[in-house]
């Protein structure tokens, strides 16, 4: 065997080893989501059912139409997105922080698995939970309203990309978190307000121009709008802009998490 063949072989086995390592994290994370389904899948189902009954059913009847659709049909995509955002974020932040807190993140730190795969592995856990919850809430929504799915490809891709984005966000949160409180601060004080103001419950065209412009600074608006566009075919903003913004955020968050892990922030003293 020549030196270059040998190097190639090592390269190929390294690649295979990396894939197995990545797969191990993903399986572990997915098993975690399913094992603690009472904590991961049931709460969003309950709270979203309540949203549908109260906002869609009781209040929605008085609101009338929004964007040319019944209020129930209008908020359904918003509520699905809200669940995806929350659940993918919370999944990664709690799982990764848990592994830091219990020190079993060290199992990964001592292994030869590269940091980018650790990031992608944890991210996949959040994405899978996000998608599971999206499917669940969609099924629940169908009990209350009809959804057409005008652009299936856009709908699915926006959900996945949003789950990716917020999983990465959750990871960065977990890297910095030192105690359990640090895990809930961002979801409560930043994520929830941005989601509520991101057009989940209303079209921003209802707002005065000034507040419409302020709303445009909220990245969640673009995701909710793009998703709504996929299902209903109506949107507050351009679909291209939405994709650009989502992808930009994903790229930025991924680079930040890689940089943090390479530096060992929150992990290595």
């Amino acid at each position, binding site marked *: 065997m020549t030196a270059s063949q040998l190097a190639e072989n090592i390269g190929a086995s390294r690649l295979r080893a990396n894939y*197995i390592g990545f797969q191990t994290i993903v399986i572990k994370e997915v098993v975690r989501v399913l094992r603690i389904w009472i904590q991961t899948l049931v709460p969003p189902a309950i709270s979203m059912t309540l949203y549908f009954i109260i906002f869609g059913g009781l209040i929605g009847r008085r609101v009338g139409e929004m964007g040319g659709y019944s209020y129930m049909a209008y908020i359904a995509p918003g509520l699905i997105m809200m669940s995806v955002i929350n659940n993918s974020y919370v999944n990664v932040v709690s799982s990764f922080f848990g592994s830091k807190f*219990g020190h079993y993140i060290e199992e*990964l730190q001592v292994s*030869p698995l*590269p940091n980018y795969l650790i990031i992608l592995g944890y991210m996949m856990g959040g994405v899978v939970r996000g998608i599971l919850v999206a499917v669940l809430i969609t099924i629940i929504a169908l009990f209350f309203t009809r959804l057409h799915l005008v652009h299936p490809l856009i709908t699915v891709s926006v959900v996945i990309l949003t789950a990716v984005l917020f999983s990465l966000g959750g990871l960065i949160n977990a890297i910095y978190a030192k105690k359990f409180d640090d895990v809930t601060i961002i979801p409560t004080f930043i994520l929830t307000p941005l989601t509520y103001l991101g057009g989940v419950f209303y079209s921003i065209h209802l707002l005065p121009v000034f507040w419409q412009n302020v709303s445009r600074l909220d990245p969640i608006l673009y995701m909710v709008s793009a998703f709504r566009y996929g299902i209903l075919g109506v949107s507050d903003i351009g679909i291209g802009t939405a994709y650009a913004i989502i992808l930009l955020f994903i790229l930025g968050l991924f680079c930040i998490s890689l940089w943090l892990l390479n530096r060992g922030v929150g992990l290595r003293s």
Partner: protein
Amino acid sequence: MQALSIHGLAKTYKNGVVALKGIDFDVAEGEFTALLGPNGAGKTTTIGIVTSLVNKTSGTVKVFDYDIDTHMDRAKSCIGLVPQEINFNQFEKPFDIVVNQAGFYGIPRKLAKQRAEKYLKQLSLWDKRDDISRNLSGGMKRRLMIARALVHEPRLLILDEPTAGVDIEIRRSMWDFLKKINKEGITIILTTHYLEEAENLCRRVAIIDHGEIIVQGRTRELLEKLRTETFVLNLRKPLAQLPPLDGYAVTQVDDTTLEVEVSKSQNINGLFELLSKDDVQVLSMRNKVNRLEELFVRLVEGKG
């Protein structure tokens, strides 16, 4: 080849604690080496840097010639770590913990399961494989971490106080196990506070204190350096007054106990002759402390 080669390794923690002051430490392939030192000496810090759990401040570390700065993944593949503190997910099952660890090292699932079975059996944990790890006893948890560290069949096994809080019987079986795998070719480094352990187990020792390696070498040669030994004599009858024992450093601990320091050049028979002459009968005699411990104390004190 050197399994581990550390040069000028220094570590200052963010809070200003200087944990390592530029240590040099080498371990040849196939060796069984103890890293000895009191609490806070810098043992865990050293191990942490080697296993990339701690950032170093300066110096170089090579594992089987792979520099951890340039060939981190290769170096990591060579090492199995049994840490000082428990660091597995206590809500998982031992079997899953070991299989997943193999996965992180890139071992295919099927082989990982075979290996997990092999090592859990070797460490007498097979019947506990499906228990929740939290419910294992302290000694079992340590053994679980040994099984986990071996699952990717590393060439260098590093154990940070593996027998802390483990009862005598299990400690001995752990020793036998470590001796066995060392014979099979795995290089072993362990830290311990039980000096008996180092003396029993390790061909080489390095003594570290306040972030510096005071001495390292063959265990036997280090013991040779000990010129004197202290014996404790138990007497049959209470002794009111210590008789003159020329040439021997004797102290009376209580009325039936004497302590004698005997140097290598001295003859202990002479002492008994002197005692017999004064009609002092010795019931029993023992070494005051483990010899390595004595050496250890002497070295550490001699420095400070």
